[in-house]
C-alpha cells in the first residue's frame, strides 16, 4: 500500500494529526504499540464490583517506563505529606517513590485520552512568554493567536461543552455545547471559593451535553477515568480516529511497536521498523510523525541517537504538580453523582499570580475525579472505624464527601529528564524510558500554596475536619507530562521548529506533549497538543 505519512502513536496528538492529514487527502498509516479498546465491552462500569476495578489493562497497553532520581523527602516539608483518615501517612521514606500509577498513561488506539477525564482547556495566552516575562524556562516560538483557530476546530469536532468566562482565552464560544450542570459538591465549592474572592466557572469539558455524531450525551456516572462506556467522552478513539477512518484513508496497525528509525541516503528518514504482534516488520515512509507522548518519543529518539543535534532530547521534562484535599460535609448529599471536574477556578493561573513563585495553578472541583464515588472508597480512605456504629455511619455520610484539587506548573530543571534506563530493556531489546524528576524549591512553594488554598476552600465550605490529602511531594504521580523534545526557533536549544518539524531531519515531525516549551499554569494539555497537531498538518501540506 502506498502511504503518504506514517504516524507513531494513536494518542491525542497522533489521532488529531491523522484526521487532519486524511482530510487533506493524504493516505496515513498509524503504527500503534497498544491494542484497541471497545468502550461497550472493555470498561467495567456495569459490573457490581466496579469500584474494585480501574481502567482495564490489556496486553501491550502499558509502556516500558522506569524511575531514576525522583528527589529526596525533607522532613521539614512534611506538611505536604499524603495521608488519609484510615491509614495515616501514605509514604514513610526518605526518597520520593513513584505512586502505583507513576507516569499515568495508556498505550492503545486513543492513547492516554482513553483514561483521561476530558477537561478541554486552552492555554492562558500569557503562558507562551514564560522566559521573556518571568526569566524562567523557555518561551513558545508561537503565540496564542496561532493556536486559536485550531482550538476552535478541535472543540467543535469533539464536542466540548462549557460556558467559560469570556476574555482573551475565550473571545468566542458559540461553537461550544451547553455547559453541564454542576454537581452538588461543585456548587458548594464554587460558592465557598467565590466568598474567598476567587472566580469559579463551569469547566470546559470534552463530554457531550447533547448527542453528536452518533455519540449520546453524558449520563453523569462520574467515572471518566475508568473509561467511558457510552462514548460521549471525547477520547481520541471515538472522535478523531473514528472520523479519520471514515475518510477511507487511514490504516491503523495495532500491537505495532516501532523500535528503529532508519535513515535514507539523503539525511531523511526512509523507514521505520519494529515488532508487530511478536513478528518483525519494516515500513517505508516519505514522512514520519512521532506521537508517542513525552516519555516514549524521547526514548525512541535516544535509542536511535537521532534528531538530537541540540542535545535537548529527553531534557526539560516537566511533571505536573497535583494536590487534593477532601473531607465530609454534613448536610451535603449525592456528591457521587455528576461529571468529574465540572467546576474550575483560573484565578491563580497566570505565571505571576502566586506571590514568590514562578508558575501558575488552577483549582477544580474533584470529588468524583478523586474517586469518592462509592462505599469502598469511603470505607478504605475517609471513614475509619468498625462494627455496627461504623456501618450505620457509612450509610449516613455516604454522598457527603467533598474534594478540591490544585494542578500546577513545574519549570524545567536540569535534574528532570527522560533517559534510557542503563539496566532494563523491553522484550524488543529497547532500553526502558527512565523518568528522573525532582521538585525544586519553586515547585514546593507552589505546591504549598495549592495545599493551603485547597484547605482554606474546604474550611470556607464548612468542612471542619479533613479526611484525606494527596499530593506529589511524597509520590511521583503525573498524568500530564511535557517538554522532552522542546519546540523552538533556535536549532541549538530546541529539538523541533515552531511547526513540530525536527531541526535535524527534514521529514521528521513531532506532535505530542514532548514539544511543549512550558506547561502552562495547570491547564489540561490535550486541546493544545491537538491544536499543535492540526497546525503541523496544515503546514505539511501547504
Amino acid at each position: 500500500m502506498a502511504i503518504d505519512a506514517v504516524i507513531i502513536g494513536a494518542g491525542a496528538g497522533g489521532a488529531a494529526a491523522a484526521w487532519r492529514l486524511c482530510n487533506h487527502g493524504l493516505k496515513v498509516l498509524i503504527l500503534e504499540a497498544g491494542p484497541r479498546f471497545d468502550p461497550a465491552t472493555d470498561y467495567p462500569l456495569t459490573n457490581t464490583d466496579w469500584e474494585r476495578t480501574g481502567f482495564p489493562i490489556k496486553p501491550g497497553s502499558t509502556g516500558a517506563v522506569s524511575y531514576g532520581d525522583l528527589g529526596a523527602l525533607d522532613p521539614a516539608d512534611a506538611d505536604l505529606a499524603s495521608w488519609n483518615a484510615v491509614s495515616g501517612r501514605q509514604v514513610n521514606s526518605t526518597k520520593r517513590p513513584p505512586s502505583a500509577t507513576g507516569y499515568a498513561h495508556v498505550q492503545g488506539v486513543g492513547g492516554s485520552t482513553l483514561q483521561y477525564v476530558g477537561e478541554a482547556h486552552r492555554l492562558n495566552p500569557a503562558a507562551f512568554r514564560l522566559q521573556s516575562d518571568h526569566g524562567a524556562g523557555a518561551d513558545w516560538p508561537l503565540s496564542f493567536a496561532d493556536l486559536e483557530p485550531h482550538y476552535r476546530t478541535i472543540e467543535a469536532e469533539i464536542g466540548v461543552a462549557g460556558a467559560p468566562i469570556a476574555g482573551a482565552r475565550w473571545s468566542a464560544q458559540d461553537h461550544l455545547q451547553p455547559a453541564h450542570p454542576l454537581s452538588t459538591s461543585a456548587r458548594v465549592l464554587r460558592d465557598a471559593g467565590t466568598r474567598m474572592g476567587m472566580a469559579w466557572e463551569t469547566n470546559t469539558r470534552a463530554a457531550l451535553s447533547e448527542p453528536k455524531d452518533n455519540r449520546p450525551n453524558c449520563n453523569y456516572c462520574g467515572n471518566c477515568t475508568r473509561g467511558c462506556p457510552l462514548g460521549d467522552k471525547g477520547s481520541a478513539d471515538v472522535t478523531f480516529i473514528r472520523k479519520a477512518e471514515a475518510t477511507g484513508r487511514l490504516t491503523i496497525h495495532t500491537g505495532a511497536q516501532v523500535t528503529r528509525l532508519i535513515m535514507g541516503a539523503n539525511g531523511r528518514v526512509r523507514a521505520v521498523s519494529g515488532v508487530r504482534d511478536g513478528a518483525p516488520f519494516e515500513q517505508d515512509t516519505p514522512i514520519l510523525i512521532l506521537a508517542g507522548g513525552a516519555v516514549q518519543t524521547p526514548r525512541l529518539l535516544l535509542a536511535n541517537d537521532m534528531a538530537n543535534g541540540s542535545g535537548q532530547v529527553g531534557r526539560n521534562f516537566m511533571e505536573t504538580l497535583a494536590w487534593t484535599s477532601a473531607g465530609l460535609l454534613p448536610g451535603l448529599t449525592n456528591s457521587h453523582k455528576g461529571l468529574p471536574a465540572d467546576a474550575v477556578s483560573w484565578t491563580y493561573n497566570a505565571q505571576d499570580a502566586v506571590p514568590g513563585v514562578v508558575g501558575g495553578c488552577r483549582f477544580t472541583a474533584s470529588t468524583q475525579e478523586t474517586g469518592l464515588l462509592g462505599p469502598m472508597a469511603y470505607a478504605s480512605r475517609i471513614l475509619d472505624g468498625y462494627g455496627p456504629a461504623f456501618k450505620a455511619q457509612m450509610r449516613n455520610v455516604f454522598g457527603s464527601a467533598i474534594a478540591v484539587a490544585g494542578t500546577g506548573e513545574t519549570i524545567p530543571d536540569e535534574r528532570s529528564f527522560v533517559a534510557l534506563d542503563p539496566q532494563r530493556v523491553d522484550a524488543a531489546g529497547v532500553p526502558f524510558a527512565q523518568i528522573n524528576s525532582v521538585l525544586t524549591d519553586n515547585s514546593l512553594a507552589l505546591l504549598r500554596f495549592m495545599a493551603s488554598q485547597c484547605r482554606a476552600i474546604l474550611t470556607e465550605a464548612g468542612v471542619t475536619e479533613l479526611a484525606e490529602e494527596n499530593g506529589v511531594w511524597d509520590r511521583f504521580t503525573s498524568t500530564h507530562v511535557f517538554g522532552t523534545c522542546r519546540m523552538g526557533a533556535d536549532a541549538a536549544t530546541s529539538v523541533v521548529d515552531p511547526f513540530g518539524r525536527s531541526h535535524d531531519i527534514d521529514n521528521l515531525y513531532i506532535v505530542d506533549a514532548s514539544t511543549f516549551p512550558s506547561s502552562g499554569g495547570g491547564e489540561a494539555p490535550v486541546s493544545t497538543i491537538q491544536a499543535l497537531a492540526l497546525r503541523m498538518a496544515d503546514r505539511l501540506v501547504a
Partner: protein
Amino acid sequence: MLSISRRRVLMSALAASLSPPAFAQQIAATEGEIDAKTLAAYLDILLPADEHTPAASALGIEGDIIGFARQLTQFNQLLVLGTQWLNQTGQGPFHALSLSDQGRVVDWMRAADRNFIPGRFFLLVRLTGVEFYYSRPEAVAGFDLNPAPQPAGYPPPWQ
C-alpha cells in the same frame, strides 16, 4: 488525580506496608496456615450483620481475602501470624470466644502500635475487608446507589 485499579493500589499499599526490614523480619519465619474460622470471626466483629446488610462471613469475605493473599506472600504470612496471635488471646481459638471478648481484643488491636503484628493486622485486614465487603451488592443495601454506575448513570437534577 486518578482513579486506578483498587487492586493495584491495595497490592502496592500492602507491599509497602510490609516491606520495612524490622517488620519483614517479624513475618519472615512464619509457618502454618491461615485459620479461616478465626479470620471469619474477626471480620464479623469489623463488619457485623445489621438490619440492612449481612455480616462479612455470610458473604464469604474471609475466602476472598485468603484468595487475594495467595498473590502476596508477605500478606499471607501476616494473616497466618495474625490469626495465630488471635488464637492465643483467650482460652481456646479466637472464633470460640464470646462476642464481647472478641470485641475487647479488636478494640485493643485498633489502638496498638502498627509496627507490630496486632496493629498492622488490624489496619490491613480492615482495609482489605472493607474493599471486598463493599464491592458486594448485598452490602450496599440502604445506600443511595445504583448497582453499578452504568448503564443508568445519575441524570440530574441532584439536590
